[in-house]
């Protein structure tokens, strides 16, 4: 059975609809890339999948015993207030919060998990540093390490490379690909259509026309070709 299936999902705020009739399926191990123009509702879709927001219509089914506290999430923007005193280690381990339930403190296993995620992201040497003093790329890694503490199953990433330079962007994509190769399902929003095509197994295009399928189908579809040609012009 699939991890996530949506049926005729519509997204909207208050009474106006942003995107309608979104149908897609995510199976364990998939790498789904969500593309579309600015304001087409990609972030809204992420938030709806995470139950941060109610769907305007339609349903989301979680399969394979996926619980909402087994999802890792990397937000598009984390508005961390200026001066917030938080060390990298504190932030990364806070990804384990969903595992603790009502237990007040992190246990050994969770501390190990946090260390492992930091190693994985190559930020072990930053563990004691203050988050606010890191560069954008380092901050993004910290948040990805936190997301990895929250899940072994599925990661939702909203534009994980926004604001990163080209070299770090490639590193980031490679890291995400490695996680995917290790069996973690990835759902990623990206503006970078080239990356989407390079890395993803499936594409969901939202906008006036909704497309869902494997990336090969997307490359041959009308929506896909139109979107690709426009991206290249810009």
């Amino acid at each position, binding site marked *: 059975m699939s991890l996530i299936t949506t049926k005729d999902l519509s997204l909207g705020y208050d009474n106006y609809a942003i995107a309608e009739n979104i149908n897609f399926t995510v199976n364990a191990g998939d790498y789904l890339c969500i593309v579309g123009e600015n304001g087409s509702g990609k972030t809204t879709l992420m938030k709806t999948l995470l139950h941060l927001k109610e769907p305007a219509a339609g349903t989301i089914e979680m399969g394979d015993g996926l619980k*909402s506290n087994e999802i890792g*999430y990397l937000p598009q923007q*984390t508005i961390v207030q200026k001066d917030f005193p938080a060390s990298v280690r504190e*932030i990364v381990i806070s990804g384990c919060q*969903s595992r603790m339930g009502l237990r007040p403190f992190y246990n050994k296993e969770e501390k190990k998990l946090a260390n492992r995620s930091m190693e994985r992201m190559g930020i072990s040497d930053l563990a004691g540093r*203050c988050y606010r003093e890191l560069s954008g790329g380092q901050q993004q890694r910290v948040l990805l390490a936190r997301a990895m503490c929250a899940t072994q199953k599925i990661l939702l990433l909203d534009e994980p490379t926004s604001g990163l330079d080209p070299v770090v962007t490639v590193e980031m994509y490679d890291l995400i690909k490695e996680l995917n190769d290790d069996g973690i399902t990835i759902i990623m929003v990206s503006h970078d259509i080239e990356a989407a095509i390079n890395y993803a197994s499936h594409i969901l295009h939202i906008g006036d026309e909704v497309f869902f399928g494997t990336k090969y189908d997307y490359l041959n579809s009308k929506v896909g070709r139109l979107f690709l040609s426009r991206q290249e012009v810009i």
Partner: protein
Amino acid sequence: MLDKLILYFEYPMVRYALIVGVLIALCSSLLGVTLVLKRFSFIGDGLSHVAFGGIAIASVFNVSHEMYVVLPITVISAVLLLRTGQNTRIKGDAAIAMISVGALAFGYLLMNIFSTSSNLAGDVCSTLFGSMSILTLSLSDVVLCVVLSVFVLTVFVLFYNKIFAVTFDENFSRAVGTNASGYNLLIAIVIAIIIVLAMNLVGSLLISALVIFPALSAMRIFKSFLGVTVFSAILSVICALLGIIFSILAGTPTGSTIVAVDVAAFAICSIIGNLK
């Protein structure tokens, strides 16, 4: 001077004052960071005014233990303010401003109309700025204070990690299934309790100072949440002790003396922070 101090310590009143002072300083500093970094700082300010209104009501009805009236009123207001704050349609800040100024005016009005006290101005002043000295505490005041402080400390320690998570990134917490609204509610209730507690020490207008200064001072020097929390607790207790002792020796008003020491500590911490 030391002799005088030792002599003073013979009196249970002085010892009560120190116990209460230390506990209140400890509790009020704990949620300082959360308060500074969330819009809860408005709530804190608003609630202190609500508590003033509560005291006015208590004094009108001649309730012997003001706390039993003020505490529920303040906690309920905290819950209501949090509700309106979440509703983006009604601007949270405006609602808070309305409630707090309203409570202040209403409280003063009530006191003016119904008060039987001959020294109304003095009563109002001590409610706003803390009593002239905290040597008037009764044993039952002290007991209530200890109970509430223990409650606040327990909640804070047990939920420390969740409070950090929800303060740092509420959306992420929600996304991974943490009951963020529940924790916000808990934080608001604890803040309400702290405010009622701190009112005994520094009066309702100076509470924010007691809550916010130690956290701001610690944030100048420390960069981790744990570091800031621990240091601000220690600093707050030291400042309160110094302030209380100074006020007893010099006969100055306790609340403003403590706040003055807090301000001085903030200045020192800023300098240290800049040197680093």
